[in-house]
């Protein structure tokens, strides 16, 4: 009886925000986007890591990677370009030096990784496969395949399927495939990765862009081009998330330009089961818990008891 009361009183405390992505249980649908939250530790002074749905790490590769020369970032109108070049400590150093901090947090840890060859993808997957702290992995397939003349894995359905299949074979954990938006038809890629065993799809990564300093007549980025992120790209991201959610059965994670609770809600309505916040972490390091609160508030106002009711509820 007393436990019943507790249950009831819990249920009146607010709407249920928990979501499940491919078996990863999250308290709420808000997590950081890879590469914008370091390895989690960097943001710990500004938010309680227990209050977000998951932690997604900076993208890892087999060996440490130096990244691109500087300048690596440029502000654009309502967005930013980055050409970090996937600088990272490498998977082994991550496990040794970065994971111990994350072990102290109960929030699930999703490790984002990439490779420049098929084999590299496979090898990183193996090394992560028996690390218990890794709740799931997110496969960044927006990288050029150095062996195949630099064609980007994620722009070719066959290459994308190959990568996903291989990782699937090497790793028994929940597998999220993160798609690049720089394609003619994202649903073709989404279908390919679903069929090859992806348990969830995250979209979108950045759009390739360029900015030029008219005084020096040089590209603002040493790498010439970079990835565009931030509010500017949101309409494109919402469109792609909607298209992908209509196409696949696996859950979709929406990302691209979220800076306010209403932006996150837009993605959920479009069909995303969860969302990632990227560039906005730079603007306000405490933004994710605020977005969670805003979503909760919206659910209360709209009479939504369970966030999953909202997912894909677009009226057309």
């Amino acid at each position: 009886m007393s436990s019943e009361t507790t249950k009831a009183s819990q249920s009146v405390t607010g709407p249920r925000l928990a979501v499940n992505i491919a078996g990863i249980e999250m308290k709420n649908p808000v997590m950081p986007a890879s590469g914008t939250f370091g390895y989690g530790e960097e943001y710990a002074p500004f938010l309680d890591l227990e209050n977000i749905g998951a932690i997604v790490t900076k993208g890892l590769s087999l060996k440490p990677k130096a990244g691109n020369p500087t300048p690596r970032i440029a502000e654009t109108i309502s967005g930013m370009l980055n050409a970090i070049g996937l600088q990272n400590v490498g998977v082994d150093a991550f496990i040794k030096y970065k994971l111990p901090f994350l072990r102290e947090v109960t929030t699930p840890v999703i490790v984002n990784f990439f490779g420049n060859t098929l084999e590299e993808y496979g090898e990183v997957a193996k090394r992560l496969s028996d690390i218990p702290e890794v709740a799931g992995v997110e496969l960044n397939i927006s990288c050029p395949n150095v062996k195949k003349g630099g064609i980007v894995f994620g722009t070719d359905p066959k290459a994308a399927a190959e990568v996903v299949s291989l990782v699937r074979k090497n790793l028994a954990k929940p597998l999220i495939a993160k798609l690049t938006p720089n394609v003619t038809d994202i649903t073709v890629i989404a279908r390919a990765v679903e069929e090859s065993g992806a348990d969830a799809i995250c979209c979108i990564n950045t759009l390739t862009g360029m900015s030029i300093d008219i005084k020096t007549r040089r590209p603002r980025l040493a790498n010439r081009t970079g990835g565009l992120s931030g509010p500017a790209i949101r309409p494109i991201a919402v469109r792609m998330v909607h298209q992908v959610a209509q196409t696949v059965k696996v859950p979709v994670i929406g990302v691209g330009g979220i800076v306010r609770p209403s932006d996150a809600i837009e993605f959920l309505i479009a069909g995303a089961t969860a969302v990632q916040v990227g560039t906005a972490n730079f603007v306000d390091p405490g933004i994710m818990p605020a977005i969670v609160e805003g979503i909760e508030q919206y659910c209360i106002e709209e009479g939504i008891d369970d966030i999953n009711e909202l997912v894909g509820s677009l009226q057309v």
Partner: protein
Amino acid sequence: MKNYKTMVLSNQEISPGYYRMRILAPGFGASARPGQFVMFRVQTSLPPLLRRPFGIFRTGFLPPDCEGQPPKEYLELLYKVVGRGTNIMAGLHHGDRVEVLGPLGRGFDPGNPAEEKILVGGGIGLVPLYMLASHLTKTSSVRLLMGGRTREDILAVTEFERLGVETYVSTDDGSLGEEGLVTEVLKRKLEKFPGASVYACGPMPMIEAVQRICAERKVPLQVSLEALMACGLGACLGCVVKGAGHSEEIPRYLCTCKEGPVFRAEQLDWARMGEETGYCEGCKS
């Protein structure tokens, strides 16, 4: 280290194009060390999207509005209007809402109290040197060599003098102090005080010249660098600079925001420093 959601106390133009802004920041001073910086959010609405990095000029207390209340702690910035963000900043008034993330980064190592200290500032580069001077003057003899294009770029000299710092000014056009480069003054001072330590902040060409001078003379040098920053926390890896021993094969990047902005000269790869500055191409020509 905290995100202060706070307000502007005052914002005044102190020389053409240079402003001094005081921001309410209770508790900030106790945690701030000389050479650290903040990421400043120009306004609570967007744009601009990204925060702007600014050195901490000083912290202090204002008398309270009413008797019996505690004094108001403030953080003071000193900034030059150069682009979109600083232009908006110049228009801020008392009471406007702003956000300050800080204090961030690694500041200056005060070094051995017995040594002479020579601070070299170029233009707005004097900002982190003021707080440093106010610490160093407690134990050491401190000299400030200030350089600028013209007299209007020479700021806050009297404030340094009030700390007991001996100040030498040089301008490119001779409109204030000596005509010529601050690095020439540095060479002379190092002849007089070969055992001094040098602390420098200013435009990259000045920093590079100071580095050469100190390296030749084996004088310990700390420099405060600028870099384009998105997060200020070591998370985005946008602000890296090449560390000593850097090569294409074994790259050694350091985060200016977290491992800097102050570096000991030995930490850095000076041969490759000039190649990649980008954000201030303009001021190099």
